[in-house]
């Protein structure tokens, strides 16, 4: 019983424009994620990346917009579609790609893979493979902030699929009860693997999922990096001022399948093309940049080239980096 799905669109309030610097920074970071993921898909196809590989293509504006709101000491945690989050926090493409190929200089020495990377330095707390498990963990990061009495926030990402896990609501309850500084960012890309949100959720407006806990929530056009940042600012301010958690439902879309081995037959090509043609976060940013004359076509081409170089270098590194020493099998079990 399929119900027509509303296409995410900027039907909400108009959002504040970005400065030249903001537009260009966001554009570049989104492009790095896009090109990285395309390259990862390609390398998966070549057998260089194994196992599961969930690409973030289409959702770039969410993590890039949110990252623009954060400051030193803030924490980020997410599920298994995590490459974009890592790159947005400033983790190096080389180290992330080398982890995808299971090599010694990957972020987890090749022992974690696509779904399990961390960076204490960048405040990235993983990369978690069990749907929804990162939600109590992210709430615990917020607990630590409150325990220490700082004004840092934990940005805890999860998808529309995870939004139906019980531990999410256990976390909502405790975070509001104890006024923990956590922004729950629900990345609603409309499909939990192959099940559309209308087939899985009694209440499809996920920003309302915190209502019975008194947690405020907003629905945000997650394809517009400016809207994401504006919503993030509001939520972060709420959290930093001690008012407790905040929910942001990001209406977004993934262009690729759930993972590399998903043929995505549960949706039409037209649906994908519609979002891609009319709502692509990177194309829209590019268009704004040109319209406002923040940069010329040539200057953007130059950025594209630089990004391509970074990604090619990462791919090259990840292809030639050695596998971990066999002695690594038994390290890092205990410390």
């Amino acid at each position: 019983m399929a119900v027509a799905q509303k296409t995410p669109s900027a039907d909400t309030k108009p959002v504040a424009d970005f400065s030249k610097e903001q537009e260009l920074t966001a554009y570049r970071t989104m492009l790095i994620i896009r090109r990285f993921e395309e390259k990862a898909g390609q390398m998966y196809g070549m057998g260089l990346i194994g196992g599961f590989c969930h690409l973030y293509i289409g959702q770039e504006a969410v993590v890039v917009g949110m990252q623009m709101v954060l400051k030193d000491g803030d924490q980020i945690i997410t599920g298994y579609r995590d490459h974009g989050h890592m790159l947005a926090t400033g983790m190096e493409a080389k180290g992330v790609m080398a982890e995808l190929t299971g090599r010694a200089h990957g972020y987890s020495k090749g022992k974690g893979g696509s779904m399990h990377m961390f960076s204490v330095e960048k405040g990235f707390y993983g990369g978690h493979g069990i749907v929804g498990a990162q939600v109590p963990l992210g709430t615990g990061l917020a607990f630590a902030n409150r325990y220490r009495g700082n004004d840092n926030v934990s940005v805890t990402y999860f998808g529309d699929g995870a939004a139906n896990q019980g531990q999410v609501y256990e976390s909502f309850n405790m975070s509001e009860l104890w006024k923990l500084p956590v922004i729950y960012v629900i990345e609603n890309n409309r499909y939990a693997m192959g099940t559309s949100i209308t087939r899985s959720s009694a209440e499809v407006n996920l920003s309302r999922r915190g209502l019975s806990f008194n947690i405020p929530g907003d629905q945000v056009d997650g394809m517009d990096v400016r809207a994401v940042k504006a919503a993030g600012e509001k939520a972060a301010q709420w959290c930093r001022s001690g008012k407790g958690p905040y929910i942001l439902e990001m209406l977004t879309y993934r262009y690729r399948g759930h993972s590399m081995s998903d043929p995505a037959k549960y949706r039409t090509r037209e649906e994908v093309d519609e979002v891609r043609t009319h709502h692509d976060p990177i194309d829209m940013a590019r268009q704004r940049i040109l319209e406002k004359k923040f940069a010329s076509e040539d200057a953007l081409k130059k950025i594209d080239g630089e990004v391509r170089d970074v990604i090619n270098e990462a791919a090259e590194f990840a292809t030639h980096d050695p596998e971990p020493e066999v002695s690594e099998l038994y390290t890092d079990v205990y410390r």
Partner: protein
Amino acid sequence: MPTEVLMPALSPTMEKGNLAKWLKKEGDKVKSGDVIAEIETDKATMEVEAVDEGTLGKILVPEGTADVAVNTPIAVILGEGEDKGAIRATKPVQQQKAAESAPPAKAEKSQAKVQEAPAPKAPEAPQAASDPDFPEGTEMVTMTMREALRDAMAEEMRRDKDVFVMGEEVAEYQGAYKVTQSLLQEFGAKRVIDTPITEHGFAGLGIGAALARLKPVVEFMTFNFAMQAIDQVINSAAKTLYMSGGQMGCQIVFRGPNGAAARVAAQHSQDYSAWYSHVPGLKVIAPSTAADAKGLLKAAIRDLNPVIFLENEILYGHSSPVPKLDDFVLPIGKAKIVRPGNDVTIVSWSMGMTYALKAADELAGEGIDAEVIDLRTIKPMDTETIVTSVQKTARLVTVEEGWQQSGVGAEIAARVMEKAFDYLDAPVARVSGKDVPMPYAANLEKLALPSVADVVEAAKAVCYR
């Protein structure tokens, strides 16, 4: 430079596929994301997208070709300003031929040298230190295990402000079993935290706080309820250090009563010693005396790894002497010979020790001199102490409340078989809980649990008496 489009692997197991259809033809402009072809695998039809901008210069594998091996070049994309002349002469791959001549893909294609070295030997378990000697004349204070556990937490909380206690009823109620009595009064609500009844949630929250380098002591009202949280304990607490290549650890203690209490039936009477000790990354402790409870809980709170601390409701009220020292800490991973003997080794821990020690008394009356070992730590297991004892006695009985299959007794028996097979004069005997859910009726419950008589009988059997 022209870019070759390779036959992609579309799943972790795919080795070849059929090129069903070309959606672009030679000379067509393509941009990243455009679908250029359809590939059929044994599972599904998938689309191949262009990953670069350019012109489809040449199709190398015609549509309808079956069994094209992964990584076979299927087309060439020309970049801006390049023409067909840039394509090096490549013959279109023939049907069938593709499968035979194509590289077997995957591993071979990987450029880095794949190490084929044999698996390294598992490291020997580091030998735990012996119990610290305390000066002769040290005052011994008799206290209950409940008080000893409380003192351990209070001392560690005084010592380190990052240590906090959370769980159901731990603060205002003073602990469902009064183990956290008076902690709220001393440390306040910030560090002694009543949680809602939400095990999965607060276990995960505690682990998150530990990832942020706090040192939580999470109380489960009983370990029966921790099954709601076992995913977080295993997948998040135990594995994160490894998954992060050693970068992110999780210093946390999960503690609470484990095993059967009395007349609380099947869902509230289960021993989880074997469950948690199965998992790499966890340490598992189960003390039987007040002194061990205190010294080991202090060690657990200081340990950098996630520790499962299994207590016992019946033992909470048992009193025994505890040395009065400013900082009494015991080594994790060290068993203790509680009663030396020569004829048979009895190994147990926690509540099982009460059966083992009473049985040893009875056996002495019958002329059998039993050596009783309190394992204290289930993981890492002190195999050496057990093996050394068996080399002396040549006979072994294990005692546990848990079920027999895949139990801790089974593990001990296997280790002794591996390391002291020639010393054994009889097969190892396992006394355990019976293979049934815990019944409620008093008579049946008694039968379901191990008893002193069971231990005596087993010890006599291995002594052929």
